[in-house]
């Protein structure tokens, strides 16, 4: 099960593990096709050319496989979609809940992974 976005998708927990172990900088947006999530996917699409050192992915929130994101300790207080998690060298560097604007996202990207 994958989201109908223009981003690359993560479909399974195993894929997520492989991704964060093979890529130094990973941003995963775990959500639905709703009004709080879609703007984040759009911003990620647009940032892909600028932040070539970051792997941008989405994941379907309602997939059982997405428990790999939903159950992260960093997401335990989250009560708003999407759950967006930033992985640096396989570990969670930052996480955010609900809609974020471009500036909020680039601030986290720059802080977690260095400037584009």
């Amino acid at each position: 099960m994958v989201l109908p976005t223009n981003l690359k998708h993560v479909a399974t927990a195993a894929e997520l593990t492989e991704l964060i172990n093979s890529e130094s900088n990973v941003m995963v947006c775990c959500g639905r096709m709703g009004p709080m999530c879609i703007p984040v996917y759009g911003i990620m699409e647009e940032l892909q050319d600028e932040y070539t050192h970051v792997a941008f992915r989405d994941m379907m929130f309602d997939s059982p496989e997405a428990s790999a994101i939903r159950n992260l300790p960093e997401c335990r207080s989250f009560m708003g979609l999407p759950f967006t998690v930033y992985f640096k060298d396989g570990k969670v560097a930052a996480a955010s809940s609900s809609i974020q604007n471009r500036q909020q996202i680039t601030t986290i990207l720059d802080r977690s992974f260095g400037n584009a």
Partner: protein
Amino acid sequence: MEAKHYDSIIIGAGPAGLTAGIYLSRAKAKVLILDSGVAGGQMILTHEVANYPGFESISGYELSNNMRKQAKNFGCDIMSGISIETIDFESDKKSLSLSGGKRFTSDTIILATGGRSRNLGVAGEDNFKGRGISYCATCDGDFFTGRKIAVVGGGNSAMEEAVSLTKYATKVTLIHQFDHFQAFQHAQDEVKANPKIEVKLSSKITSFNGDEKLESVTVENLLTHENYEIALDGVFIFIGYEANTDFLQGRCIALNDGQEIITDANMQTNIPGVFAAGDAIAKRYRQITLAVAEGTIAALNAMEYINKHKSTVSQPVY
């Protein structure tokens, strides 16, 4: 840095701005579309569009993508995620600069900046967004199953969402600053008939409280000025939309009391060569179809303006 010149600069890449871009670029005008967010505006946030002629059902995301592609294919330059630093509407040659230093000039400007959901602007609101505060019942309602929540607002959205959220929450407190609701009577009747909803009129939230997530709100009774705390897990805010015209305030473009852009039937503002379309203009109904129509009118009149001022641009092809 030398300024790049366009026949028209469109500010806003929602349905109004993209439509204006499609019409102008198809008429061989040089067009730049700027947007502070992503192309699509409020349309991209719509789960399903079922009243756009020609499509029985299409997601707002797909419709936005289609319009953006169409505008690009006709030759529009589109820049997203920009921030406007300076803008000059009044000179014959309009000009603007972006943060980062890029400068552009144009013969016409079309303002299609759209609208956005209103925030309460209360202490703690930003901190608890996604940790108890939400602006979308469909997205986040199920996080509050078996919990106590509040809904803020007195219009149709607030009423309908309050009722819908009783599917999840054990109790919904509906908080509204006025002594009456603005929603349609049938929506009010549904609220009154729902035993899970408690109404607090003439009341407003003055602070959001909690540690890692929202735990309570402080509410002021606006009649007695008494302040008290309500323990809860979530607050959904539905207090309407406002035009994205902050950057126009105090400038020469005429706005009404609601800070919406005033236009005539040709989508012309009070400044020659500056047009406006979409949800940022003063009007009664806000629909994608209307934004598209207004974008068309603005583009055709902008084209006429360009042709009057410049003989080198070819005539539009309809």
